[in-house]
């Protein structure tokens, strides 16, 4: 069976995976980048370029762990060893189900998460199509827990970040001077954390082995280099007395604009590291099963070209459609000044990168929502629509069974189509 249809399976998986990655790039990236455009720190063109570069880098450099989880963390490979075809069908069905559900949801404008769809789909096909005992419920439980914890964590980090900005900069007698003094520290923090987590967890598949000391050293170096660029950009910002008259913080916000640029890069990187796995994980599973001739092995190395395919898919989605979504989001959020946008985005980026490091697939959007709420809690945002927050969190509950049911249907459909009897 596998030998007979091996190439077909791989091609199908590539097509479905690319479709899914396209969807992620078209829709999800806007959530990650929209805040930067909305706060006026980036133009749409800049946002698309940054997103393309850093999404790809994130997927390639730090996307391995989460891909591993999606691919083999939730379903016990030992039980499936005798019937590798089922895993192939299941993963194909999951990709198709998640992609379809995202398309339907986007059509109706429902706020669903790509992560939730794919996890729901995989758990669905495994539990119903094969057997409840195949699902690693402990691991799935941890993933579900992380969906609750990640927005909370992002909210707390955002709250702390924004409070520190208030205390150090905004609430002082000389906000502009203090902004120039302290913003480089935030730039360093953003670059350092992103680099550190990536180095700690992500780079083994590139054949890069660093000691703990070296890791911290390299992360610090990255932080310093990025900060140096930031300081240069900040030096160029002058007080603008005209703008100051209508809004006292306008020059301060320009300084934060530099920071927002760095944060946007970190966010795109984080998003690439986590969300690309949604599309690429099942694809990786199919490829490894087919190429190894039916051995369901969790430990086999993942070919780099798969991550690259995912990264390219995201970029294509972004360029063909995502820029429109970023434009709508970006022009809509006028409430988000760079100082607030940075706190929310950096909190989300740090949470996501950390989750990527531990291999947990979390929803970038929900994490970002948590970050925005955190800034709101610090009384930094004039109005937040709690009705939308409710809708977003309700969509969790709907997405899991929806993804599962679709996956089950496609699973049996594929089995029938290939005439598989076992």
């Amino acid at each position: 069976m596998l030998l007979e249809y091996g190439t077909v399976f791989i091609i199908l998986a590539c097509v479905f995976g690319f479709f899914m990655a396209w969807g992620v790039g078209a829709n999800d990236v806007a959530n990650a980048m929209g805040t930067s455009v909305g706060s006026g720190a980036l133009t749409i063109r800049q946002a698309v370029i940054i997103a393309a570069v850093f999404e790809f880098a994130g997927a390639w450099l730090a996307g391995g762990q989460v891909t591993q989880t999606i691919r083999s963390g939730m379903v016990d490979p030992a039980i499936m060893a005798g019937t590798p075809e089922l895993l192939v069908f299941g993963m194909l069905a999951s990709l198709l189900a998640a992609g379809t559900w995202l398309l339907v949801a986007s059509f109706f404008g429902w706020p669903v998460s790509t992560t939730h769809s794919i996890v729901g789909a995989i758990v669905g096909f495994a539990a119903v199509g094969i057997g409840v005992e195949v699902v690693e419920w402990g691991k799935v439980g941890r993933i579900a827990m992380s969906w609750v914890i990640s927005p909370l964590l992002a909210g707390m980090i955002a709250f702390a970040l924004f409070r520190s900005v208030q205390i150090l900069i905004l609430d002082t007698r000389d906000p502009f001077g203090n902004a120039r003094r302290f913003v480089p520290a935030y730039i360093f923090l953003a670059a350092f954390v992103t680099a550190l987590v990536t180095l700690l967890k992500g780079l083994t598949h590139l054949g890069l082995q660093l000691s703990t000391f070296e890791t911290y050293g390299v992360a610090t170096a990255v932080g310093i280099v990025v900060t140096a660029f930031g300081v240069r950009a900040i030096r160029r910002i002058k007080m603008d007395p005209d703008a100051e008259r209508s809004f006292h913080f306008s020059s301060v916000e320009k300084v934060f604009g530099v920071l927002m640029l760095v944060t946007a890069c970190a966010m795109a990187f984080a998003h690439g590291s986590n969300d690309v796995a949604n599309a690429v994980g099942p694809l990786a599973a199919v490829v490894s099963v087919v190429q190894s001739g039916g051995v369901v092995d969790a430990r086999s190395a993942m070919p780099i070209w798969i991550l690259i395919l995912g990264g390219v898919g995201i970029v294509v989605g972004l360029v063909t459609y995502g820029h429109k979504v970023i434009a709508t989001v970006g022009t809509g959020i006028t409430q988000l000044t760079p100082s607030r946008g940075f706190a929310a985005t950096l909190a989300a980026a740090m949470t996501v990168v950390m989750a990527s490091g531990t291999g947990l697939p979390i929803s970038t959007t929900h994490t970002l929502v948590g970050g925005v709420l955190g800034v709101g809690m610090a009384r930094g945002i004039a109005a937040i629509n709690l009705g939308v927050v409710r809708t977003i969190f309700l969509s969790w509950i709907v997405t899991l069974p929806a993804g599962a049911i679709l996956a089950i249907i496609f699973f049996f459909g594929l089995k029938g189509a290939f005439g598989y009897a076992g």
Partner: protein
Amino acid sequence: MSPKNFVYDLFGRSPVRPLQTHMDKVQTCVAELPAFFDAACAQDWVRAEQSQQRIARLENEADELKKALRLQLPKGMMLAMSRRDVLEVLTVQDRIANVAKDIAGLILGRRMRFPANMIEDLKDYLARSIDAVRQAGRIVHELDELVEAGFRGHEVDVVNDMLKELDSIEHDTDTIQRRVRESLFGQEAELPPVDVMFFYRVIDDIGDMADEAQRVGSRLQLMLAR
């Protein structure tokens, strides 16, 4: 796929800008009063009526803005300031425009003739009262900075200083009001009694504008206190 996005939807429309727009409208409405008063004192009722029409129209527009803002603050909004305070400030702001309209309507309707020796004082009084409204407007315009700073720190001191200034302006109007009333009291026996009644009414109304302006300020102070 429609380019609809829920992170964008997350941000409810801020009440700060509409509140400021409303206050601006109220200020333009009030700022029309001196011109009206000049015309009335000169007994130029044609010009006074045009001016009164403008005031009435501006008051109407302020009303519309008030309604729009009220509709835009549903329960499910997490606001940086208390919903009640926002609505209260709005109501008080709107009352300033109402009083301005009343003053103009009353003077025009009764073709009032103030005693010549009072006119100078009355103009001062009106101007100071309008100063109070303008100061309140200035404070309302600090709201976006307050949100930015999370209602804490240095910005709060700035606003508190402005509030003190508003209080002292309001105190001035009280002093002038006392003077105007005394001057009216001294000559009320020689004037038609019904006219005197309405003179007092106009004097009170002008003072009310400053009082309401001060109330806008104290509501904003409550926002700071939370």
